[in-house]
C-alpha cells in the first residue's frame, strides 16, 4: 500500500511544511480576528490561549487569566477555525496524457495529496471526489490525522479513463456536498467551457469557495509535433485524427489560447480562482502560487 512518501519527496514535504505559515494566513478561519468561522461553536476541545486583538468576541475572553495577570487572553479551540475542503479530481481519459514521464493524472493525484497533507496539517477537513462522466468515488471531508491515509489510498487507486463531462458531474455534486466549504477542482477542464462555467456558478451559488487547478501537459501548450501524426483519442475509442501537425500548429495554438482566455474570463466572472499548472513544474511551485493567490484574496 502506498504511503505519503510515495507521492511526496522529502523536499516537497519540507517545502510544504515551510509553506504552512503562508497557508495559515490564507485558509478560511485562520485569521480568526479578521472574520468569523462559519462553524463557530462546533468544537469544544481547548487548544491554547492567545492575546486578545480587537475584533475578537468578548465572550471568548478568559476572565481568570485577566484576574491573575491583568491582561486579556482569548481561548482558542481545536475545531474552531477549520475549513471543510473537498478535492474534485478529474480522472477522465484525457488526464492520462503525458508527453514525458509524468501524465496529467499522475501530476493531479500528487497535487491532491499535497493539498490534503497541507490542509490536514492545518487540521482542516479534507474530502475527495474523483469523477469522469460521473462520480467514481466520494470520500467525505474529515480532519482526523489518519484520514490522509484514506485519501492517499484512494488517489493511488484511481485510474484515468472515460470521457469528460464536467458540467453534469459538478451539477450532481452540488447536491452531495451540501455543507458549504472549499472546493478544489483538479482537472484539465477539457469540454465545453459554458457547461463548466455554469457548473462552477452553481457551486458559487451554493456559497462554496472554488479553486480550479487546470492541469496542462507542455505538449498540449506547445504542440511540438513535426511529422505526420495519428492522434488517437484517450477518451473515445477508435476516434483519431491523421494530420500534418506543422500545418495545423498555429491554428491549434490559437484555439488553445482562445479556450484558456474564455475559461479565465469565466472564472473571473464567477470569482473562481483559476490556477493553470503545467506538469513539468514542481507541485510545490504550484502550491506556492496558489497560496499566494489565496492570501491576496484574503
Amino acid at each position, binding site marked *: 500500500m502506498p504511503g505519503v512518501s510515495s507521492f511526496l519527496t522529502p523536499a516537497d514535504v519540507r517545502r510544504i511544511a515551510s509553506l504552512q505559515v503562508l497557508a495559515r494566513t490564507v485558509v478560511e478561519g485562520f485569521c480568526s480576528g479578521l472574520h468569523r468561522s462559519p462553524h463557530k461553536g462546533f468544537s469544544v476541545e481547548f487548544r491554547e490561549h492567545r492575546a486578545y486583538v480587537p475584533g475578537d468576541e468578548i465572550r471568548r475572553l478568559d476572565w481568570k487569566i485577566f484576574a491573575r495577570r491583568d491582561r486579556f487572553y482569548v481561548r482558542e479551540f481545536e475545531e474552531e477555525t477549520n475549513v471543510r475542503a473537498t478535492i474534485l479530481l478529474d480522472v477522465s*481519459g*484525457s*488526464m*492520462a*496524457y503525458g508527453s514525458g514521464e509524468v501524465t*496529467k493524472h499522475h501530476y493531479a493525484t500528487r497535487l491532491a495529496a499535497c493539498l490534503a497533507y497541507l490542509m490536514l496539517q492545518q487540521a482542516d477537513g479534507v474530502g475527495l471526489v474523483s469523477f469522469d462522466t460521473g462520480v467514481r468515488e466520494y470520500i467525505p471531508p474529515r480532519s482526523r490525522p489518519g484520514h490522509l491515509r484514506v485519501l492517499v489510498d484512494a488517489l493511488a487507486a484511481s485510474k484515468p479513463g472515460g470521457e469528460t463531462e464536467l458540467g453534469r458531474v459538478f451539477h450532481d455534486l452540488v447536491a452531495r456536498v451540501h455543507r458549504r466549504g472549499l472546493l478544489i477542482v483538479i482537472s*484539465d477542464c*477539457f*469540454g465545453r467551457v459554458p457547461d463548466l462555467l455554469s457548473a462552477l456558478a452553481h457551486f458559487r451559488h451554493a456559497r462554496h469557495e472554488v479553486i480550479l487547478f487546470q492541469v496542462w*501537459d507542455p505538449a*498540449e501548450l506547445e504542440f511540438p*509535433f513535426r*511529422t*505526420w*501524426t*495519428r*492522434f*488517437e*483519442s*484517450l*477518451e*473515445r475509442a477508435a*476516434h483519431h*485524427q*491523421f*494530420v*500534418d501537425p506543422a*500545418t*495545423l*500548429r*498555429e*491554428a*491549434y*495554438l*490559437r*484555439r*488553445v489560447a482562445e*479556450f484558456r482566455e474564455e475559461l479565465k474570463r469565466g472564472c473571473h466572472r464567477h470569482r473562481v480562482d483559476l490556477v493553470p499548472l503545467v506538469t513539468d513544474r514542481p507541485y510545490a511551485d504550484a502550491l506556492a502560487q496558489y497560496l499566494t493567490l489565496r492570501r491576496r484574496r484574503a
Partner: protein
Amino acid sequence: MFVRGPPREGAAVTFLNIVLLGGLAAAAIPLIIHLLNRRRFQVVRWGAMMFLDDIVRTNRRRIRIEQLLLLLVRMAIPALLALAMARPVLTGIRALIRRAPSSTVVLFDNSFSMEAGEAGRSTAGAAREEAAAIVADLPRGSEAAVVGMAGPMPAVEDPTVDLVRIRSGLEDAPGGFGLARIAPALQTAAGLFASRMHQADRTVVIVSDFQRASWSPASTEERRRAWDALGAQAVPPRVVFFPIGAASTDNISVESIELSRPIVGTGQRVMVRAGLRNHGRRAYPDLRVHFRVDGVDRAAAMVSLAAGETEQALFPCTFDRAGSHVVEVRTEADALRADNAALASIPVLDRIPVLLVSGDANPAPLRGETAFLEIALQPFSRGGGKMSDLVATRVTPEDRFAPSMLDDARVVVLANVRQLSGDAVRALRDFVRDGGGLLVFPGDRASAAWYATQLAGAEGLLPAALGVLAGDPADDAGASAIVAQRHTHPALAPFNDPRRGSLGGSRIRAWYRLEVPSEFAEGVAARLDTGDPFLVERRVGEGRVLLSAVPCDADWSNLPMRPFYLPLMQEMVVHLASNVHPPRNVEVGDRLAAFLAEPEGEARAVVTDPEGTAHEVPVVRRGRRGVAEFAETDRPGLYTLRGPKDEPVHFVVRTPREESDLARVTEEEMKALATEAGAKVVRSGDEYRELERERRFGRELWRSAWWLLLALLLGELVLQRWFARRAA
C-alpha cells in the same frame, strides 16, 4: 511598331547540358518524402482532441488544397534546379542555322569627329577594333564589307569572304573625313545586299559616335528613304546601332578662314580672318592661336573663348614670292586635332597684267580714254607710294592692238573702242574662253552695229547689245545714278560694307540702254535708277566678260571723281583675273583643276593628297594651256598638284564644320532612331556578341531559371507561413 528584320521564328528550347536534365526526376523527391511521411507517421494518444477536432473540421478542404499547392511548389524546386543546371537555351529555327554563313555590312563612321577620344585612344581606334572583332566573329564562309559613312574605304568596301583582309584593311583604313552621311551609306549597303552579297542571314551594323549633326531630324526623310531601300531587299537585313566612345563635348574648332582678297600680289598685304568656335562647356581664357604660311610659323595671338562662343583672329600677311601659297590658322586646344586648324590656298601673283585698249589715246593729262583707269589700277606707282600695285597696265590704241599682246595679259579692257579687226575678235574670244577676263567700257566712239554683230550674240562675248543711247552727255539734268542695293556680284559685294565705301553719289549723264537677252538676265550685277542695266557679266568658256553701260572716263559721268571708282575698278579687274585660276579652296567632293603650261605630248601631273599618297592625272591641252583635274577629294586637307613644267599648285579641300560639334544624340533620340530603323542598340563589343550569340544560338534561360528557383524557394516559405496564418 514596325520592326524591320526577318520574320519571327518559332520558339524552341535546347539544352547545353542535356545530361543534367535527368535531374528533373528529383521533382519526385518531395512527393516521395510526402508519401513516406504519410506512411511513417507517429501515433500519439492524445488528450486535447477537442481542439484538433475543431481545427480539422473547419479546415479540412482548405488544408488539402494548401498541402497540394505546397507539394507542387516543392516538387517544382528540384525540377527547376535541374533545369537551370541543364542550361536551357531558347531558340527558334535558329538552332538549325547556328554557324551558317552570313552577309554583314559594317557602316563605319570615318568622319573626323571620331578622332576625338580620351587617354590617348581615339574613338576611331576603338571603332576599328570593335568593327574588326565583329568581322572576326562571323561564321566561316561569311562575307563582309565595310562602308565608310564620311569617306571611301577602298580596301574594305568590296564584299569578300576573306575576313582577314577586311580586318587588316580596317586597321589601315584612313579616317578624318568630313561629315558622316547616313543615308548615302545606307543606300550603298542596300546596293551591296542587292547585287553583291548572297547569304540569307544579313546584318547591317552602324559603328559610329552618333553625333547629333549626322542624325539631325532635318535628314529624317532622307534616312527614311534609305531605310525603305534597305527594307525592300528580298531578305531585309537586321540593323544594329553600335554607338561607340565616351560622350564628350569639349572641342575648339577653327571653323572658317577668309582672305580679304582672292588674289594677292607679291608685297601686297592680305588680311587672313579666322573664325574660332568653342563647341563645349569649358571656357578657354587664353587660347593660343598660331598663324602659319607654307608650314612656317608667322604669328600667334591669344584669344579668349567662353563656352559656346565664337571669336575671330585676324592676321595680316604679305608674300615675297609669287606662286601658290598656303596659310594656316591652328590652335592646340584639344585632342580632336582634325578641326584645330583651317587652311586656305592663296595664289600670289607678281602682277596682274592688264591690257588697256584705248579708243581715244589722247596724250593730254586725264584726257585719254584710259587715263583715269590707269591711275585707279596703279595708284601706288602713279602716286609714288612705297607699296606695290597688284595690277600692271599696258595701254595700246585700238588701231595698234595685235593678238600677240594677249599672250602676256590676264585681263583686257576695251575702253571706248570703235571696232576691232576680225583676227583681233577671234583672238579675244580664244583669250576669254581660255580663262581670260574682258572688261568693256563702250563710249561715244563705239559702233553699236559692230558691237552687235561682232561681239554680242550667242557665239559672241558680250552679255548684251549696246542699245540706244540714253541721256545727254552735256546735260546733267537728266542724269541717273547707280542704284544703292545689296550686291551679290563678287566685284560689288565689298560695297555692301559701308566701311569700304558705297556706290552712292554717282551722276551718269549718258548711258547705253543695254539690251540683255533673257539667258543672261541673271548676269546683271548693278542697275541705274532708271532701271537700265549698269553692269552685266557673261561667262564664256573658262573666262568672264563684264560690260559697262558707261565709259570709264569722265565724259558721260562723274564716276572717276567718286571715291568708289578706284576700288570698283580694282575689284572688277581682280575678279576677272581670278578667273584665270580655278578655285583653290573647295569643298569635299569638288573637282580640283589647275591651268598648267601648254603640255607636250602625253604629259602627266601628280597630285599629292593629305595622306601623302601621290596620284597621277593627265594634263589635257585646252587652247594654249594644259589643264589637270583631280576628282578624288573625299578627304579634307591640303592637296598639291605638280605639273611637268610648273610650280606646285596647292588646293585646300574643306569640310563642313558640323562634325566639330561633338554633341551626341540623347538616349531618347537614340530610342527614336532605333524605332525609326527597327534597330537594336548595343553599347559594347560584349553586348554585340551577346546579341549575336542570342540570335544565333538562342537566349540562355539559366539565369531566369535561377531567379525563378529563388522565387520558388521564397514562395514556399511565404506560402507556408501564409497558410499557417490562414489556418490560425
